[in-house]
């Protein structure tokens, strides 16, 4: 942010000194947006334990401008799909995703949500990758991923947020796609 802000010093004695900053709307909006990523309270299986650890004081996701886990999809920016998605759960996950306001981001956390994980062959009840259901922005592999990995996933989401453009409602080039085979 700092490098893109122009400071205007009209006059050293002016009362407006240090008070006028010029930046672009995109820069400002993206800065605010990526500094307060609100994930949804949404743990499906064992990955949720690591997600809780990431939110707790030792790893402290709040340091990176995220962390108020919201109990409603309508206030959330980021859906961390933490855990095995069963076929029974899939319609609920889809509904929660649909209820989130744009722009919304999805992180597939752990092997199960990435591709089915240990259930890939014999798990009759498991959705083989959450990207068959909802578009995924960032994949975080691991079984379960360590909190550091989840934080790294958050940084990638924030990188993506930096490239958002306010006037581009379609979010060209930023919208992930569903896996279609």
């Amino acid at each position: 942010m700092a490098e893109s802000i122009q400071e205007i010093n009209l006059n050293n004695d002016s009362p407006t000194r240090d008070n006028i900053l010029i930046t672009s709307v995109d820069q400002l909006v993206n800065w605010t947006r990526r500094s307060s990523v609100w994930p949804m309270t949404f743990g499906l299986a064992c990955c949720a334990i690591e997600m809780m650890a990431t939110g707790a004081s030792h790893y402290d996701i709040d340091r990176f401008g995220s962390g108020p886990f919201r109990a409603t999809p309508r206030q959330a920016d980021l859906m961390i799909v933490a855990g095995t998605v069963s076929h029974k759960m899939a319609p609920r996950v889809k509904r929660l995703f649909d209820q989130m306001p744009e722009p919304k981001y999805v992180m597939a956390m752990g092997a199960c949500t990435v591709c089915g994980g240990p259930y890939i062959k014999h798990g009759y009840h498991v959705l083989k990758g959450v990207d068959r259901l909802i578009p995924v922005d960032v994949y975080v592999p691991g079984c379960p991923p360590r909190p550091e990995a989840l934080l790294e996933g958050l940084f990638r989401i924030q990188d993506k947020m930096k490239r958002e453009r306010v006037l581009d409602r379609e979010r060209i080039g930023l919208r992930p796609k569903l896996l279609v085979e």
Partner: protein
Amino acid sequence: MTPDKVHEILKAKHAQAVSAFDPNPKHPSIKIAPEFWRVVAKTLRDDCGLDYLVSLTAVDRAAELEAIYTLEVMDGARCPIHVRVLVPRDNPLIATVEDIWRTADWHEREAWDLMGITFVGHHNLVRILCAEDWEGHPLRKDYKSPDTYHGIKNNVT
């Protein structure tokens, strides 16, 4: 209540119902013919004092399906006894015992959901783990996973 004592009581009351007895000290088991299961269950609870159904599980034995009831005396020494009830695979009917041991309610639903054993007389025999519209009973040996479920491809190639 030792397994031998249970076997003795059952032999005395329902001689034709008991088809096998295995006094294995770790997993003592008694095999009961399915048509006598309800009366035997009442005897097990009332006369043998086995008032706690620890678990109800099911096994696919190819030609037959087997329900295994693990019973214990609630405030006695830990000495579980297994009761095995085998039914033919093409017509797997077992009388319910949900009114004898309350545990059996959900356990019978689970055994029906995953193994397809029908518990006759159960008040609410619907799926408990799989989705309501799931087809088939997944833990049977010949079960094939569906290729798609609600339009989502299920198999990975």
